[in-house]
């Protein structure tokens, strides 16, 4: 998979309440959740300004806090193609793989990308290119277990197979 879009930069420890505030969690409808994506973050206007395909680029510990899968769901439904961060909080990392939001860990890429830069990501090769500055970065390889899940088509597809469901 390949993604291309402009970078939106965020700081460290972006929590799940910033990604989608709990006050909107009385629904799990992706479209509704997407309306409030990043509403309580440092860029509350994110949804008004972003274009489909754009990329979130954040410092360390992205997605800390709650276990709500609504956070990666909101980001994906908002049209964000992928998230690049220096590191991810554990549950957010696991959730993203489970529900299919592509995420990449790369401290070098985060350092080498400025707000608005045009970014291309080759997910299979784990390469992040900054087309604005013509620099290239590598993402931390995905653990083999996660690769296995992706190959199976996600956790539910993997589980169906394991449980012998049609």
């Amino acid at each position: 998979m390949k993604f291309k879009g402009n970078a939106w930069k965020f700081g460290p420890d972006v929590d799940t309440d910033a990604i989608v505030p709990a006050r909107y969690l009385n629904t799990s409808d992706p479209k509704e959740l997407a309306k409030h994506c990043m509403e309580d973050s440092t860029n509350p206007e994110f949804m008004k300004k972003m274009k489909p395909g754009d990329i979130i680029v954040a410092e360390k510990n992205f997605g800390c806090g709650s276990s709500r899968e609504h956070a990666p769901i909101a980001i994906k439904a908002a049209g964000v193609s992928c998230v690049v961060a220096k590191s991810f909080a554990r549950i957010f990392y696991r959730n993203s793989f489970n529900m299919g939001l592509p995420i990449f860990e790369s401290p070098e890429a985060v350092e080498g990308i400025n707000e608005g830069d045009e970014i291309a990501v080759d997910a299979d090769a784990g390469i992040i290119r900054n087309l604005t500055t013509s620099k290239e970065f590598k993402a931390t390889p995905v653990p083999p277990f996660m690769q296995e899940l992706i190959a199976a088509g996600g956790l539910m597809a993997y589980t169906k197979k394991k449980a012998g469901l049609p």
Partner: protein
Amino acid sequence: MMTITQKILAAHAGKKEVVPGELISAKLDLVLANDITAPIAIKEFRAAGAKKVFDPDRIVLIPDHFAPNKDIASAEQCSLLRQFSREHDLSLYFEVGRMGIEHALLPEQGIVVPGDLMIGADSHTCTYGGLGAFSTGVGSTDVAAAMITGEAWFKVPESMKFIINGKIGKWVGGKDIILYTIGDIGVDGALYRSMEFTGEVIKKLPMSGRLTICNMAIEAGGKNGIIEPDDITERYVSRRARRKYKFYKSDKKANYVDVREFDFTGVEPQIACPHLPENVKPVSALASVNIDQSVVGSCTNGRIEDIREAAKVIKGHKVHPYVRMIVIPATQAVYKQSIKEGLVDIFIDAGAAFSTPTCGPCLGGHMGILASGERSISTTNRNFVGRMGHPKSEVYLSNPAIAAASAVLGRIGRPEELR
């Protein structure tokens, strides 16, 4: 040589030994979800074509976040839990009037026991480490898969050890220990790791304080928090447990990636300032901070010991005229006990509101939402931007005694300051 966390994981994976970094598939004793996370899990479960849950007596569904239903959308979510529970004859569904905040209810009712391995679609599922169980928060999809198979994948975490020594002060407890720890290592200081707590203070700490400590392990990024079970655990569990339980202990030569020792002698009550749980300061440094609201409750501090502590402080005093104090017992049993001990009278006489159990204001759901520019002191677990309401409101996290004293003073302060 294994830690308690490794031993529980190994036992549930059918292995003699596991090492950090190893990937295992383990059998689950319990699978938990609430009115926010279960709807997605139920939809995934149905979409997978699953017809049966792995065990109707090991799936816990609790409407507690926006329940009693705060609006029509929340009512629909809770209704989905109810339908699913009836459809699959789940014995551990707790309706309003019988429910409590999940992480307070499960230990209290002996549903989760020492030695258990469980997951929950709620980040504070790590609470049960206080009993000597391995429990961790996951997302809804993991719960959907677990409801089908009764198993989950885990990466065996590295362990950090925190040794809490010294003699703790009168109004210092579990909340202060965990806030101090998070202040020391930061909100990602234990990322992917297990946090094991021990030391002379922990060995004397009542179960309520132990549950509070493990509850907030996630606030340091931890996979789980855990405390070795002992006599205090035995006394708490023996009269409640609905299943057989087992005490696991860390080997003396078990490996820890980091060992930290804190001397708590003379340490003041700790407060986490906006907008991260790592922004921790001693209470005396914040005496000029005025407050509009004081909340006592949540899965962190809504147990009877917490309600008693707040009542002890506020007894005979009045809530400051400019402050709303909201007290929320975490379960029906805590509520009933509060009535029995006259604690509800104390709060009402002081001018505080006393509510039915709900997560409510902790996550900005209902029952105490903040307006722009307002500030709350709260015994809850998170102080992120907008957590309790308007993005321009603020939350300071504290223990129940400080929340009660501050409600009277109208500013952050200590029980010793009340006259």
